[in-house]
């Protein structure tokens, strides 16, 4: 038996690792759930790459403003102390190493920290990359939030990515529904395994040799 936690619980587990005062970019999709789980007393500043800091939650319908959207083109709000800036400045915040944490979804992460999350390389599909490659290399810590396995049971933590890369050696940590993994020079280290999940069981599921750091995990 391997314990599996919900996506909301993964978001909460990740949110607990974001330090007070951090500047954070949450990628489109599941990573946006992290905003709902920031612990009380922790103040973070959300960055949206289309040009805003101190982004607030979605408005009610009476306050939907077409000029105020996030990177997923959804309506958002501004918190007091918000700022707007152009795209060059916004991506300079990433590339220039000013963002503390970026949370992204993923198709695959390799044991050297490569990320694949922008294209499945399927013939005939229309490619679109957006800010994915910029975000992948755009923060001091790049966290990936994804399931351990695909729906048909294939590992998403792999020796080498099969899908086209988004960034090379860029991922710091992977938060999955079974465990938290650190990317280390020696491969994946299990920082935290949920419930009765064991490192041996994770090695069997992934077909990878893993470093056990669960004893020192907080």
């Amino acid at each position, binding site marked *: 038996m391997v314990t599996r936690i919900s996506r909301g619980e993964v978001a909460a587990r990740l949110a607990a690792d974001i330090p007070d005062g951090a500047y954070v970019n949450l990628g489109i999709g599941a990573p946006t759930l992290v905003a709902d789980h920031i612990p009380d007393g922790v103040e973070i500043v959300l960055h949206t790459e289309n*040009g805003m800091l101190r982004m607030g939650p979605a408005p009610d*319908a009476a306050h939907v403003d*077409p000029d105020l959207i996030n990177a997923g083109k959804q309506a958002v709000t501004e918190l007091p102390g918000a700022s707007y800036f152009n795209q060059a400045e916004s991506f300079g915040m990433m*590339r220039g190493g000013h963002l503390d944490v970026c949370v992204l979804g993923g198709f695959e992460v390799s044991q050297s920290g490569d990320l694949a999350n922008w294209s499945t390389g399927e013939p005939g599909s229309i490619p*679109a990359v957006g800010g994915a490659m*910029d975000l992948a290399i755009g923060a001091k810590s790049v966290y990936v939030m994804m399931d351990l396995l695909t729906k048909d049971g294939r590992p998403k933590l792999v020796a080498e990515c099969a899908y086209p890369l988004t960034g090379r050696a860029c991922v710091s940590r992977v938060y999955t529904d079974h465990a938290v993994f650190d990317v280390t020079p020696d491969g994946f280290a299990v920082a935290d395994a949920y419930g009765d999940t064991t490192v041996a069981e994770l090695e069997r599921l992934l077909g990878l040799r893993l470093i056990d750091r669960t004893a020192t995990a907080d």
Partner: protein
Amino acid sequence: MIDKVVEDIDEAIADIHDGATIMIGGFGRAGQPVDLIDALIRHGAGDLTIVSNNAGNGDVGLAALLDSGRVRKIICSFPRQNDSWVFDRLYRAGEIELELVPQGNLVERIRAAGAGIPAFYTPTGLGTQLYEGAEVREFGGREYVLVEALAADFALVAGLRADRLGNVVYRKTARNFAPPMATAATRTVVQVDEVVPVGALDPEAIPTPGIFVDRVVPVGWRDWLPDGEFVGGLVDVNGEPVDAGIDPHSGHTKATEHKPSGVEGRR
């Protein structure tokens, strides 16, 4: 006297020529200069190369320009969206060429062109298929790819207010690509909701100083932004009218059914 205001929007874009490269501002629909794009469609110039973050939404603005068959190539970061059916059809039919550029590299290429830098090294995209064969160089123990600046013949962007000198201010996240694009084109044309007297704009907060702007076209206030005051509940996030308005007691829309896009004459 300097007066960059052009009241006639068709006159403002009349010198766009066949084969021109045109930057078009906006992130999705926010900041898209829809009135200028409509004028460009009326104007009829063809064989165009368009630089924009996306490749059109719904059937209006950039999507309508693509649908007119006058765009040979688009340089963008994120063409595929849930409402990009015009681009999707043209791309699948082989009727439009796509150059896909990561968003941060796209805007930095534009910024570089406007700042007189012909090329630069960037970490974004290193080791990916988008930069196969690109020149790679190591600085401080880290590898970077070389990319070239991207200039244009024209930039069409949207602002909130401008004065006759071409100083432009924007509104919220609609600013996005407009300031760098305004610097990178031979001719920059800005549509604004309102032209104000010289001296009315705060000199400490001018994202686009007039030196970058050639023409300013006033297009009037949007229905949900009369006199620059935001009125909630009239439109959805796409700027499309909300059918039954807002129940003032609950603050929620009475009818939230998504209207199809394609409402003519709206920004």
